[in-house]
């Protein structure tokens, strides 16, 4: 737990609020009447056993699934229906539980693709690649190189991502999301399948993104140590239901949470 920011965040303004959201797939009720909020500048962890509905929740937040019930308010705007690219335009970026990179492209191009939204020049300029179009490419390349330096992946920038080991792929995917300069960054198990050293690196990147760029982060993670270290507040889901919400310490002591993780029958 990172003490200095906590008091600010408790008072802070709400960036995203989820109210009474329910989502089902046919008979499967993946999310049942869940409400919580994410405050500006915090690291919010979403935890829970397998199949609890964590990924589904991120999919609802970035417009990938439309919930059957509930309201979602982001930056003060309550939304009825939204597509993922609207969420991207609104400032929501994410990474996936199973890496979802553009396999045929280099690490650099993957991250550059994250800048698509920020680029303006039309077709004819791009055809000629002179003047404004070339300048635009170079300006954005500078931003992308800063991200590459930050993530310490200079050596692999020209390598097609399919050839990279899993840990580096996760890093490139984080880079692509950072390139969007989001207000809210959704990370779905950013450390899954990593060794200890890679986890430490990734934790450091997440803390730095939060501290230096002030990016609000929602994080799904199974490793409790990581959750305790990184997050300001934690929401716990089980079988689609919210069973606890609070600081890492509060959540850790919550009897419902202990039962859920120990698999006590409901």
């Amino acid at each position, binding site marked *: 737990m990172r003490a200095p920011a906590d008091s600010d965040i408790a008072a802070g303004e709400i960036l995203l609020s989820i109210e009474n959201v329910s989502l089902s797939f046919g008979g499967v009720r993946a999310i049942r009447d869940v409400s919580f909020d994410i405050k500006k500048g915090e690291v919010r962890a979403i935890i829970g056993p397998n199949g609890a509905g964590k990924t589904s929740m991120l999919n609802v937040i*970035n417009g*990938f699934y439309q919930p059957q019930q509930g309201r979602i308010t982001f930056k003060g705007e309550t939304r009825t229906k939204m*597509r*993922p*690219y609207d*969420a*991207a*335009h609104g400032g929501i*970026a*994410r990474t*996936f539980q199973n890496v*979802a*990179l*553009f*396999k*045929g*492209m280099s690490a650099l*191009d993957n991250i*550059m*693709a*994250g*800048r*698509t*939204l920020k*680029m303006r*020049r039309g*077709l004819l300029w*791009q*055809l*000629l*690649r002179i003047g404004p*179009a*070339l300048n635009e*490419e*170079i300006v954005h*390349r*500078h931003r992308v*190189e800063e991200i590459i330096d930050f993530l310490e992946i200079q050596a692999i920038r020209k390598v097609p991502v399919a050839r990279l080991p899993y840990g580096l792929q996760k890093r490139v995917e984080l880079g*692509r*999301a950072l390139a*969007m300069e989001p207000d809210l960054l959704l990370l779905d198990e950013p450390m899954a399948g990593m060794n200890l050293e890679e986890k430490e690196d990734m934790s450091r990147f997440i803390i730095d993104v939060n501290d230096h760029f002030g990016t609000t982060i929602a994080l799904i993670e199974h490793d409790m140590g990581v959750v305790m270290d990184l997050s300001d507040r934690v929401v716990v889901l089980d079988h689609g239901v919210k069973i606890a919400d609070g600081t890492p310490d509060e959540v850790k002591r919550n009897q419902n949470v202990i039962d859920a993780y120990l698999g006590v029958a409901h």
Partner: protein
Amino acid sequence: MFYREAGQFKTTYKADQAIFPIVQDRWFVIGVLAFAVLILPLFANQYLYTEVLIPVLILSLAAIGLNILTGYCGQLSLGTGGFMAVGAYAAYNLALRVPETNLIVVFLFGGVMAMLVGVLFGIPSLRIKGFYLAVATLASQFFLEWAFARVKWFTNYAPSGSVAVANLELFGIPIDTPMRKYLLVLFIVAVLALAAKNLIRGRLGRMWMATRDMDIAAEIIGIRPLHAKLSAFAVSSFYVGVAGAMWGFLRLGSWEPLAFDINRSFQILFMVIIGGLGSILGSFLGAAFIVLLPIFLNQVPGLLGIPLSTAMVSHLEFMIFGAMIVFFLIVEPHGLARLWAIAKEKLRLWPFPF
């Protein structure tokens, strides 16, 4: 001279993003162009122009067009022949009805009309993928063939259904000899190929490749599938349309819809597969290979004293194409261009492979 990039440190992102970042590649392209413009015309004969150089160049342009759509954006199309026909007939009608129009404008008009039709037939791609999209584009191929055979206005009510162009000229210079036709084709193809290379390396190219590799993730970083797919159909069809117009005007001179039938679509698709999906260079290699192979089979065994019958030659042609397509689809989807890149990579390290 060695093929090396050692010592060529790029000190600015601008230099790193140049169209051919390795000096030897840049000189290679300049060298090929210089050879094509200055040296070839010194010895090329009519046969070389009309049977080899002009067809290879024009079909390369069509292959670049299809490669943008299929190789870069991942949308399979079997309608290339139909879109070439749109380019050819649009150009024919403009030249017929507004005879003073500059020839280059005529070709570009063919491209623009093909682009409009391409976007229209690209709309189903927003809903359907893969095999189903291929079938939809096949339907557009048959529809366009039918339209140019049946709607007499397109062919200016020619009783035979065949149209012809004559007395071509550009800026007062008659385009009447094979060499002049060749130089005009070379100019247009070189300019459009470089423009395609630019597009691929920019925002639009990344949008296409992102859509091809993982459309869901593309959407999540803010790429509209509508925008990416339809722009790929537009640019692709433009290239194919210009190629169609030049095929009619500079290669055939007179033609019927049959010149742009489904076989043409397959021919261009095979060029893209053999040359390399997602490669501009591959589009040229594939076109050269497919144009040259039959010529080679016709000439070489005869020279070696093993005369083959015409039927045998065409059978052999099919067998070799078939084998190569299976080979490339299974073993090396990036085609001849990839083999070329591997060779270059080896050369770059040679003689120290570490």
